[in-house]
């Protein structure tokens, strides 16, 4: 844009005072133009508040206060719900939940259930991650492998894994194998596709640079693509671990002799609201700690990739 308010001929007359030059006033002429006005007279520009800046940092203290308020809000909602608890909708108080938790713990059932569930998730999810890493890295690295696997995976992943539960129970009986199979079915496709994406994010130039340094394809795969992908792969593991627990609970709700999901159904039968709440909180705490652990692993494996 050219500045039309500039005089084409030097010294051809004074500038038109604002608002008087009928029809000839231009954007730049009027110091009182609305777009110039600030909220506060005598200032210019839009001032931004400290709290709601787009994608901008807030002071550390404010962050801590806000985080604590969030947790406190959750507790308050719980307390209110417990206060309104009635015969039809029973909500146990935090204290009742705590007592139920200590009972559960002292009875020894918690440790059996917890270890049963954790072992199932660990077994199923490990298999799922191994398959995910092998296939995901292969798909992300080779177009031919991608072309082969993309359509079957793209098709199969739209089958809700939970819908496989009855079939798996028929095929595999009611012991450990259907539960592990369900965990795999519910997570492996996401693992494969997301790890493939992580692998595709390796900069092309890093690969070509390695070729010009004399590296063969196997070396590039093991020494360039894999090390570059580890932090991303751990992130994928973190995100999809929640789906593994989801599948575990579905499996345990339907057919199990132990485990946190099984205990949930038992507690429902005996109307043990406190214990049900305690189990829910246990799930949340497990999730939180495994997330923290995987974050720690990421920093350990790839300190260079710290954000």
């Amino acid at each position, binding site marked *: 844009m050219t500045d039309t308010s500039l005089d084409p001929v030097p010294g051809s007359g004074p500038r038109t005072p604002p608002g008087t030059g009928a029809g000839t006033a231009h954007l730049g002429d009027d110091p009182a133009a609305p777009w110039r006005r600030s909220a506060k007279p005598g200032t210019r520009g839009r001032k931004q508040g400290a709290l709601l800046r787009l994608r901008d940092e807030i002071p550390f203290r404010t962050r801590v206060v806000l985080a604590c308020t969030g947790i406190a809000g959750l507790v308050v909602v719980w307390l209110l719900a417990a206060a309104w608890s009635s015969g039809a909708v029973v909500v146990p108080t935090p204290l009742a939940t705590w007592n139920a938790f200590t009972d559960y713990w002292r009875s020894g059932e918690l440790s059996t259930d917890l270890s049963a569930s954790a072992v199932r998730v660990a077994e199923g999810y490990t298999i799922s991650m191994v398959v995910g890493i092998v296939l995901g890295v292969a798909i992300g690295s080779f177009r031919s492998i991608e072309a082969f696997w993309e359509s079957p995976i793209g098709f199969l992943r739209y089958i809700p894994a939970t819908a496989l539960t009855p079939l798996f129970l028929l095929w595999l009986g009611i012991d450990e194998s259907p539960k592990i199979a369900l965990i795999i079915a519910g997570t492996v496709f996401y693992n494969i596709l997301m790890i493939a994406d992580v692998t595709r994010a390796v900069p092309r*130039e890093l690969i*070509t640079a*390695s070729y*010009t*340094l*004399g*590296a063969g394809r196997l070396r590039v795969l093991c020494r360039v693509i894999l*090390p*570059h992908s580890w932090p991303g792969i751990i992130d994928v593991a973190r995100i999809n671990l929640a789906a593994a627990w989801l599948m575990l609970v579905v499996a345990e709700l339907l057919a199990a002799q132990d485990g946190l999901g099984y205990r949930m159904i038992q507690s429902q039968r005996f109307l043990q609201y406190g214990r049900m709440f305690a189990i829910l909180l246990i799930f949340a705490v497990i999730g939180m700690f495994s997330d923290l652990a995987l974050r720690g692993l990421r920093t350990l494996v790839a300190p260079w*990739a710290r954000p």
Partner: protein
Amino acid sequence: MTEPAIAATGTKAAPKLVLENIVKDFTGRRHKTVRAIDGIDIEVGDGEIVCLVGASGCGKTTLLNIVAGLEQPTSGGVTIDGEAIVGPGPDRGMVFQSYSLYPWRTVSENVAFGLECIGMSRKDRAERVQELLGIIGLGRFADNHPKELSGGMRQRVAIARALAPEPDILLLDEPFGALDAQTRRAMQEFLLLVWQRTRATILFVTHDIEEAILLATRIYVLSSHPGRVVEEITVPFGTNRGPSVLRDPRFLDLRDEIQELLTTQVER
């Protein structure tokens, strides 16, 4: 393969790298064939720094990739010491504009990568890396990660990494394009120093005319769409040149001449 034609250009040294009638077509939109490079002949003598100058779209990077073996020409041949290039190898070290260092490796581990590829023993590797870090002046940063270095330092590491397996020729693809003006000047002097010390043969791509004249013994000016050699210029400065060249009247004349050549290309 054809015999390298030494007599044709009259370069003093026997040509190390010969590009003969290189043509490169790309399949563009609607399967239309676009000719990016149209019959380019280039020779690089042993120990020369040859610069390819041209506006964007003249296929300079493609040409470099062809020499590196990362791309195949549609027709024409590339030979080094009379041997045809069929793929990438450590005899042609390459440096990219974006550094492309391994972020998980330390400086010395980055430099050592090519040495691992050729199966050098750990002890020899350490010695060679030490020597190279001395040349690039980053001995103190051997155990730092690329993230902790400035742009100029990273590019020096990339150059050391490419030099490590003692390549026959060093290919540089606008290596200083991402650096600020001061760092760029320092890096140009650094490259001259490396060249004087290692006597490496260098093929260099840039769109910075002054950089080309400052560094190169010969310059090929390329046209765009399609890429052709419009002029081959021998730079009259010797091997022991320094930044004083920038004030030489012949430098300014050359700069104007190349500028003129490129401008007519753009207007065409």
